[in-house]
């Protein structure tokens, strides 16, 4: 194995530190549970990835601040549920009371995220568009605004994660190959897929969706045809914000203590990797890419033995995809998608 070879090649002194070890045994044992968990995470990545993909399709811009749009939603969920007396242990409430509370948190998160998305667009991107700034300028402001938001939250809430909030106790629903699938996983995956189908249909069928596709294809021609480009851009940011807000609820549901000032950042990189993997600008590609990144990341984590490997594996996958198929698995862009 590599881990034994490298040190002996390098030197003489006995080495007890290893580089990389593989735990195949754990991988085969936990295969199904990591599959289901991976799909759950993948659904969340996919929702965030949609925000990247839509903005990229319309503006040809990586909205680095989308991870902060997402984390704003997480804080929305956190504050709402804290106000509703949720705590580290599962609440003793009836089914409908919990559903009501979660819907309220979802609404708050969506509003917070969408608002943040619009603010980012107005403050950071619109002035540059008006000045016809070069592409590099957009990327620099994007990372700058992302950073400024992150450290505003840091300044306000401090470096440590917020107290954990458990929304409900996951119940076993069914049993697949001896592994239990719980209600939490089902809720997240089903809700995420419904949202994604709704977005897909909205973009394919509605009038606004046609506008989005038109601007993605050719902004100038779209403007000539009577599409209000600025309005379409803001709408796109709002849709991305709504999906990020929903993703925020599911994220806090899955990782109760994950609300932290920089919690959005690495998730953002993974979600972007998902968008690229599926084909950036492609709405269905975001779903596929998200699920794939979730699965691959989770397998990598079990195989290599630390949860932080998830990020490394996702990143390596991103680079490999860029080498082999830079257009992503599904390829086509937002503008070209048929309807």
């Amino acid at each position, binding site marked *: 194995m590599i881990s034994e070879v490298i*040190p002996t090649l*390098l*030197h003489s*002194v*006995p*080495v007890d*530190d*290893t*580089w*990389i070890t593989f735990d195949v045994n754990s991988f085969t044992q936990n295969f199904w549970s990591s599959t289901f968990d991976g799909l759950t995470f993948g659904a969340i990545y996919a929702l965030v990835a949609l925000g990247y993909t839509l903005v*990229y399709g319309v503006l*040809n*811009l*990586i909205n*680095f601040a989308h991870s902060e749009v997402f984390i704003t939603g997480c804080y929305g969920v956190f504050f709402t549920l804290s106000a509703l007396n949720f705590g580290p242990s599962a609440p003793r409430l009836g089914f409908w009371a919990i559903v009501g509370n979660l819907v309220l948190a979802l609404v708050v998160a969506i509003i917070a995220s969408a608002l943040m998305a619009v603010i980012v667009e107005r*403050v*950071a991107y619109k*002035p*540059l568009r008006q*000045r016809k*700034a*070069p*592409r*590099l*300028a957009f*990327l*620099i*402001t994007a*990372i*700058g*605004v*992302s*950073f*400024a*938001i*992150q*450290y*505003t939250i*840091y*300044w306000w809430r401090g470096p440590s994660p917020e107290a954990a909030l458990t929304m409900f106790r996951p119940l076993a629903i069914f049993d697949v190959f001896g592994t239990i699938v719980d209600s939490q996983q089902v809720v997240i995956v089903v809700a995420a897929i419904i949202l994604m189908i709704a977005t897909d249909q909205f973009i394919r069928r509605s009038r606004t969706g046609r506008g989005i596709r038109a601007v993605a294809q050719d902004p100038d021609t779209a403007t000539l045809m009577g599409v209000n480009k600025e309005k379409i851009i803001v709408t796109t940011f709002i849709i991305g914000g709504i999906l990020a807000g929903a993703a925020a609820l599911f994220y806090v549901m899955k990782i109760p203590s994950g609300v932290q000032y920089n919690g959005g*950042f*690495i998730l953002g*990189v993974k979600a*972007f*990797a998902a968008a*690229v993997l599926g084909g950036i600008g492609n709405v269905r590609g975001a779903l596929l890419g998200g699920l794939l990144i979730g699965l691959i990341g989770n397998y990598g984590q079990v195989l290599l033995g*630390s949860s*932080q*490997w998830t*990020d*490394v594996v996702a*990143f390596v996958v*991103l*680079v490999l995809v*860029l*080498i082999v198929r*830079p257009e992503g698995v599904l390829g086509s862009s937002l503008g070209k998608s048929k309807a």
Partner: protein
Amino acid sequence: MSTTDGPTLIPDDASAQEIADREAKMRQRKGWFPGLSDKWNALPRQTQWLILIVVVVIAYLLPILNPPLITTEPGNNWQIALAQMSVYALVAVGLNVVVGYAGLLDLGYVAFFALGSYTAAMFTSPDSPYVHIPYLWTLPLAMAIAMFFGVVLGVPTLRLRGDYLAIVTLGFGEIVRILATIIPAMKGQVGFQNVGHPPGTDSSGQPIFLNSSGTPWYWLTLTIIIVVLLAAGNLERSRVGRAWIAIREDEDAAEIMGVPTFKYKVWAFAIGASVGGLSGALFAGQVGFVNNQKFDIATSILFVAAVVMGGTGNKVGAVLGGALVAYIPLRFTAIAEFKYLIFGAALVVIMIFRPGGLLPARQSLLAYGRLAYNKLKGAVGDIPPSGKVVLEPGKGADNE
């Protein structure tokens, strides 16, 4: 003159006006010191050298002068502050090659810095079980290793549009930190202590390069900065530099004009990475301790902020920007806590209102174009009315 046969060679009044308008616009987008670079360029060469020598001498004397008001004391040791500022300045010079010259946004520059630091640490620290080599040898080694990773990362991503590079480098920056945490051999937070230093002892037998003495480190780094600046200046004026600027201004046009854009982008990325590795090794030597805590993405964004603040594409601006980014939190300790917030917001504000930064880069290509145009115009003016203007192919566009 005759305009009946052939295409007109000289831009007509309308397009001349257009060029003049565009230049007027460029002039408006100057930095905080408008006209400074024009004035500088107007000076005779000898005067420029004289001023430069004075500036360099002052720079070398800074740790001894310890000028009041500017100094970071009390609060932070001035000599060590200078050593840190010089490392940041070197980082900014390296990143400026990537971001400023070639227009490639590298958001994970800290990864190359980290690679350099770990190279210096793992080959000199007694905590490391591997081969030990003298510290000074780790400097070229750090450059080579960082350059290798730069190429490995650059080749797959530089073929694609610039945005991918931004996100891949952002990911890479984070991954190097995570790997330093989770790979046991890299010792995570425990890190490597007693990183080596250059040889030499003073009269009392103490090593000159102590971690607690900033001055020798500052002088060493300053010397390296000057060497790198001279090299960068030569590159900038060479074929490579012109290719980079052409890529930055319009990649498609550059490709069509026969610039092998991919090759030059990889070069820019690799050269930038190697300077990052070098500065990382210097940093490790000065601090004497390397662990996984110092190489987060936030630091990487500070580096980008340094280049953007100084003036993207201007190497002197980069030195200034890098030094400032290190200096401001050390001097004004009250706001040190908010440095990331401040520099993040500064990036947005600068890009919107002062895209040129402190010292804007000369618009070299446009300036050359203008020069060529004026030459042409002058040449045409001398031609007798009956004569035809004969242009040698390539002479007009290629301006040395």
